[in-house]
């Protein structure tokens, strides 16, 4: 499946006839053109959370220059941005704002979870005010590990995202099938956020109480 899509989007001369018939020549070329356009012009949101934000800024500077990929237009308003780079620790106090900003972005929109904190909470995972990964509330397109990731890694994440965009089938694109994706903004409660995660985008891992993992430690404890 994915291989075929690669063919559609990138190499017209190597197009198979079956593919053409299936999708229709016009449709596939429009799709390819459109994916080319939105892949080549990914405008990130000026949105820094923590340490990673500095490396995100560094990726826009002279040595690394994200502008080469057409992405130096950091838009301060979410209305004009395509990509949200969640760069750093998302605290519980900040999580509702992050979701809100995501809701304000127009479709099609993408999310890169940059750094260990945005992916899972990172070194601060055990904190009482730290969200254990932004993917609990938002659909993440590219996970970029590191603490913090180097600017080169930011560029690579952008390249991965562009490749992903090139391979999207419009009829399967949530940006077109579901209207603007707006996710519930978590509310503050006494100690935590409510809801603790968004079941549409994240499922908790299996209950570890039922897992027979680490029997040795259990025995000693």
């Amino acid at each position, binding site marked *: 499946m994915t291989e075929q899509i690669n063919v559609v989007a990138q190499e017209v001369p190597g197009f198979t006839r079956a593919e053409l018939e299936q999708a229709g020549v016009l449709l596939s070329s429009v799709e390819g053109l459109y994916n080319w356009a939105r892949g080549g012009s990914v405008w990130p949101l000026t*949105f820094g959370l*923590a340490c990673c934000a500095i490396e995100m800024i560094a990726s826009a500077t002279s*040595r690394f220059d994200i502008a080469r990929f057409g992405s130096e237009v950091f838009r*301060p308003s979410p209305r004009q941005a395509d990509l949200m780079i969640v760069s750093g*620790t998302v*605290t519980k106090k900040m999580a509702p*704002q992050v979701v809100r900003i995501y809701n304000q972005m127009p479709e099609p929109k993408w999310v890169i979870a940059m750094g260990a904190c945005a992916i899972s909470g990172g*070194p*601060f995972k055990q904190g009482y005010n730290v969200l254990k990964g932004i993917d609990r509330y938002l659909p993440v397109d590219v996970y970029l590990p590191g603490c913090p990731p180097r600017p080169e890694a930011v560029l690579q994440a952008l390249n991965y995202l562009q490749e992903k965009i090139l391979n999207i089938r419009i009829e399967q694109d949530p940006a077109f099938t579901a209207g603007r994706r707006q996710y519930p903004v978590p509310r503050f409660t006494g100690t935590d956020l409510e809801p603790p995660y968004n079941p549409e985008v994240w499922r908790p891992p299996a209950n570890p109480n039922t897992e027979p993992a680490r029997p040795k430690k259990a025995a000693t404890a």
Partner: protein
Amino acid sequence: MSAAAATAAASYSLVRQPAMETGLLEVSMGPHHPSTHGVFRMDVRLDGETVVALKPVFGYLHRNHEKLAEGMSYLASMPFTDRLDYFNSMTNNWAYALAAEQLLPIEVPERAQYLRVIMAELTRLVNHTSLVGFFLNDLGALGTPLLYAFRERERILDLFEQASGARMMCNYFRFGGLRCDVPEGWLARARAVVDAFPRFLDEFEKLLCENEIVLARTQRVGVLSGAQAVNAGITGPMLRASGVNYDLRKVDRYGIYERFAFRVPLGSAGDCYDRFMIRLLEMRESLKILDAALRDIPTGPVMGNAPRVFKPAASETYGRVESPKGELGFYLIADGTTKPYRYRVRPPSFINLTVLEDLCVGHTIADAVVILGSVDIVLGEVDR
């Protein structure tokens, strides 16, 4: 109510302030705003463009640093200190190492002392150049000064990377010395960076210091008097811009700073321009220290005879250094175990924000952004 007042009230109802007869506009700047340097929020009340009241709101990056540190061994907190003020991991390391070394006295070898000074002063260069860049960004200079600053920053980060293995989060200091010696040829490369730096500073100063718009935008904006600054616990370049001669490198003489000849630049007006200039001038003095330190550095080990398990007796200590942002202190209470009973960071940029409202009220919203920029905050440290 007259007709004019009625129209005025009707027009203000558009911005959803039905209760306010005075027509103030409440704007919540942040936590996502291009100029709050992270996730900081200012609840601003505006009369036209003039700030009438400003309330800072913190905590959007409160990552429970102190609580986490109380649950782990002393040394395990070292990488977390990197992430406090993520521009200045080296000075953060040093402040923590300094506090811990007061708990359990360990001799730091000579070479390590020199390397600590070198790293700290390089960090100061990194911080001050970046700050000046961000400050100009807040003034509306579309990134060019920032990119020039980051170009120089990259050169210093290369040095950090060669020494410690990481660009930003160096985790280079240890109780009683440094994690490892610098690689061969590092000192020569550092020398090259330090020698090339004044040229960049000349260029930068030529670009910025006499720029008519910079002068007009920063002079007499956000004036802070010396007495007010001391009372509000302001430290670092911001305090010295108000004319108070208080540099911990001179006052506490920690490390081996008494061996270096350097001067402390002092401002006179205490406005944004002074805060900006003091940082530029401090970089020149840092270069003097670096110059001497790179010349005099001896050979030898970089790690003292630190105990394998760091287990100080029950005691309390407060260690502080002159971080580029101000006085960075660590207050540790040991209870005889391998973990600190209480671990507290005294964050300079957090306390420097105490006077933010006083500085901003009466100025325009554009000035508020500039004043915040001149305070030089990093949210990792403000909220911890």
